[in-house]
């Protein structure tokens, strides 16, 4: 519950058979959570823009797009506060971070929740190639990494307007999402892959308010990626993405990232090999990879090897205190205060995933400030029960003693949340 979930809530007891409990969460896809589609989001944005134009350039005070973005963030926090399938939610968050889109890029803001539901969530126990294709066609990603405006220089649009390629999406798919630099691609591969993806764009101000392939912006002629020839047209992009998704370097890269996230900052090579082999054997079945992951001996011994990221820490604390979903806002402000605001990674490589990145002096001090501030809101709680929920059998004698000796409820809860055993998962 601690390593693969978000930490227990009051009344939840550790499962007798943890692997079976986790396995059950990887079963057939639960119904998708409700929420506006990316087309709804783009329509809302278009409506805001139209109103701004009517008002002589002044944006609406409470735009539809902002309202959607706020509701999506709240829904994210509410769902995780009470999640009954926390492992599945954690996988969703892992893949969201793998395929980062950031609200720091304006248009992404209204689309991030829809991106999770449309491109990520349906595939977390499905095929990686399907997830990659869904991501590469999603307006959030096409805007975030600028492919929506990438024009084949020799396409009709390119010849007429003299506009050209934008390499950003092609480069980051190769570097971050699939092969990683270990895959040995070249600058020429990046450029040719960018040519392959020309025309993958978005209709943002008209129907269908979503992904479209623009044949007039697509670079004609054959292109080469890692020595393979791909023709012209949308199918060539699909073929290239499927080729990359099942490339051995991709399996190695994904396995390393999964093991680093769920097992240890320094991924044990044999653990990486096991997950990698599963991905190779199953042509990238992410459900199978997750089942291998939870059966790794390294995943269960030693425990508490992963320093909790701000997101892990805030959710675990709020869950341990039984924070009701109506107060989900506290989760979101906590993420921002501790330097990991929701869906806002500073760069396309997403949030970092090791203690070296998060356990820094000022970050730890702020974590204690936040814990103390939060504890101030739970003056009615029973500290020993909070310790029991939050730490369970992992509580050390020193912590139990310190909590029992604390001069106030607030201090006692702060000590639970500040104990080293609560800092890890």
């Amino acid at each position, binding site marked *: 519950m601690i390593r693969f979930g978000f930490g227990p809530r009051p009344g939840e007891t550790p499962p007798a058979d943890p692997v079976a409990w986790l396995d059950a969460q990887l079963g057939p896809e639960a119904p998708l959570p409700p929420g506006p589609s990316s087309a709804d989001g783009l329509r809302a944005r278009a409506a805001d823009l139209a109103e701004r134009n009517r008002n002589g350039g002044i944006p609406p005070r409470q735009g539809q797009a902002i309202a959607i973005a706020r509701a999506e963030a709240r829904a994210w926090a509410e769902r995780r506060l009470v999640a009954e399938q926390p492992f599945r939610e954690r996988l969703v968050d892992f893949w969201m971070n793998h395929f980062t889109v950031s609200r720091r890029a304006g248009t992404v803001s209204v689309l991030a929740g829809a991106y999770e539901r449309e491109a990520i969530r349906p595939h977390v126990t499905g095929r990686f190639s399907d997830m990659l294709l869904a991501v590469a066609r999603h307006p959030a990603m096409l805007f975030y990494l*600028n492919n929506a*405006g*990438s*024009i084949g*220089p020799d396409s009709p649009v*390119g010849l007429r307007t003299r*506009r*050209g*390629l*934008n*390499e*950003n999406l092609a*480069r980051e798919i190769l*570097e971050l999402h699939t092969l990683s*630099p270990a895959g040995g691609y070249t*600058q020429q591969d*990046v450029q040719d892959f960018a040519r392959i993806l020309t025309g993958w764009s978005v209709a943002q101000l008209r129907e269908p308010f979503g992904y479209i392939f623009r044949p007039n912006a697509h670079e004609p002629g054959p292109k080469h990626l890692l020595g393979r020839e791909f023709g012209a047209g949308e199918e060539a992009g699909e073929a290239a993405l499927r080729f990359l998704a099942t490339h051995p370097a991709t399996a190695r890269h994904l396995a390393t990232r999964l093991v680093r996230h769920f097992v240890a900052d320094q991924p044990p090579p044999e653990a990486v090999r096991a997950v990698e082999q599963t991905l190779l054997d199953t042509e990238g079945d992410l459900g199978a990879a997750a089942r291998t992951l939870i059966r790794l001996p390294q995943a269960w011994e030693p425990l508490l090897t992963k*320093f909790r990221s701000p997101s892990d820490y805030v959710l675990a604390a709020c869950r341990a205190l039984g924070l009701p979903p109506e107060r989900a806002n506290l989760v979101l402000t906590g993420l921002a*205060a501790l*330097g990991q605001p929701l869906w806002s990674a*500073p*760069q*396309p*490589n997403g949030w970092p995933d090791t*203690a*070296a*990145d998060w*356990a*820094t*002096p*000022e*970050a*730890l*001090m*702020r974590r*204690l*400030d*936040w814990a*103390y*501030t939060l504890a*101030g809101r739970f003056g009615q709680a029973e500290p020993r029960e909070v310790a029991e929920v939050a730490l369970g059998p992992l509580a*050390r004698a*020193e*912590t139990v003693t*310190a909590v029992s000796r*604390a001069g106030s409820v607030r*201090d006692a809860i*702060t*000590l639970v949340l*500040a*104990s*080293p055993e609560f*800092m890890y998962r």
Partner: protein
Amino acid sequence: MTLRPTRRGLLLGLAASAALGRARIAFARTEGNRRLVVVILQGALDGLFAVQPYGDAALAGLRAPLVLPEPGQEGGLLDLGGFFGLHPAMPALHALYAAGEAAVLHAVAGPWRSRSHFEAQDFLESGGAERLTSGWLNRALAALPNSAEARAGIAIGPGMPLLLRGPVPVGAYAPPGLERPPLELIDRIAELQAADPLLAPVLAEGLRARDFVRHTLGASAAEDRERRGFVRLAAAAGRLLAATEGPRVAAMELGGWDTHAAQPQRLVPMLRTLDEGLAALKEGLGPAWPQTAVLVVTEFGRTARVNGNTGTDHGTGGAAFLLGGAVAGGRVIADWPGLGEGRLLEDRDLMPTLDLRRIAKGLLRDHLRLPEAAVARAFPDSADAPALAGLVRA
């Protein structure tokens, strides 16, 4: 007859008064009074946009939508000596240049040829030809003494840049926003964490850094709340570094330079923020400014040609800035490779002609006055990039 004091006489007079009271302390610490600030621009600044070589005939052909009018024309560049012009969003830097306190370095790059942000940032900050787990500035700190109150190095901002990670403990500062536990509760938290080999030293450093910040910034920190983000951080950094017993070396990061599209709209506000931040840093440093050098670097430059979205893609050669009262400024330091036919690297990027490590090594040797061995530890395997002389005033 009036007695005209000679330079030697002045020096002797200074030495004589140094025997008295506080002046003696100040004199004794002269060697350790130099300040170095490194600002990392994450995302790759387009050096050809910030510092435009308007004297190069090939410039407009490559990137007409990004080129500004020549100096003296309306909305034009700020002249840097007849060939290069600074973007007008950076008036404070230009004023420092005119005062001889800022230099521009152009056609610079590290030894790496990676166009990956994340690899290149790691190389830039670690200082190695391969990825290292510690930063060159951290390794350089091994040769600097800590003061009684603060670590010699300090990270400004919520994160700890790789540049300052490593074996030498460093302080940190980020602006507050939450309630802080009372010191007594902190003591008990420290007792609980004492058994944890990772957290115990991190907490100790966090406490140490906060202690120092509280003593130094004190009540006037309220003034800083008016300012935002980077400018506010830079102002605080200046004041922390100005403290007599404060840190001597600071690192800060500023992201948002990855301008693949709509570059003018996105880059001008960034340049303005950087310019205001550098001005705030100078203001915060106050009387310590004459002993200060500030190095502003980025992981690589951007393509010489404009791309299909009025942006630029990942390139190689770029620009860096060096400013401070200690800097021998008022010049552009560049062995200009040219932008014309056949001059670009891979027919695409500004050809780098100056290794970034030479600049950093020059500052460690001539500004912080580190011994050769310490400079070599900061930049292992860099014999091919000797320290660049003459960056700071003698």
